[in-house]
């Protein structure tokens, strides 16, 4: 358990065990949560979850970058990026022990 990566299935299993929803409903809701979050972000709407953290959309201006391998300069076009800022609660949680 220690080294394994948590995926959708692991979260579904937790929902099934702790709440008793069917595995099918659990998987559907997990997928739906991710879908709604992605949808909110693609509309430029930030997500704020008090106990977990915030997902913010930042607009990056275009700039000149360089391929580190070939050193050839290239324009990095203007784009949006997602930033995650963990909440104080989450920061404390991962730093206890």
């Amino acid at each position, binding site marked *: 358990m220690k080294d394994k990566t*948590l995926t959708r299935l692991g979260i579904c299993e*937790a929902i099934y065990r702790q*709440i008793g929803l069917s595995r099918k409903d659990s998987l559907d809701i997990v997928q739906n949560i991710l879908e709604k*979050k992605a949808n*909110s972000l693609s509309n430029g709407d930030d997500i704020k*979850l008090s106990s977990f953290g915030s997902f913010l959309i930042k607009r990056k201006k275009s700039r000149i970058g360089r391929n580190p391998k070939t050193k050839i300069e290239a324009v990095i076009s203007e784009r949006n990026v*997602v930033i995650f800022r963990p909440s104080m609660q989450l920061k404390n*949680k991962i730093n206890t*022990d």
Partner: protein
Amino acid sequence: MKKSELIDQLAKDYPHLYHRDIEKVVDVFYNSISEALANGQRVELRGFGAFSTKERGPRIGRNPKNGERVAVPRKKSVYYKPGKELKERINSSN
């Protein structure tokens, strides 16, 4: 979007579930991610992104107000890498 808005949106999609059960589902969803990270596990949600923790070594910081040196102990921080699909989505709609 706040947590309560996420829950309300979900409630519309699952009329056969109690509102409080949906609240619990959202809590379990985020708790399982937090707990996995606290246990040093990685969390990968294909399409949306991956969460992992990174260790930051101890360092000497400074109080920005008076310039005093303060020892900052080692700590872990959460690292989020957006998924490919999400990156494409936030750049396709305007």
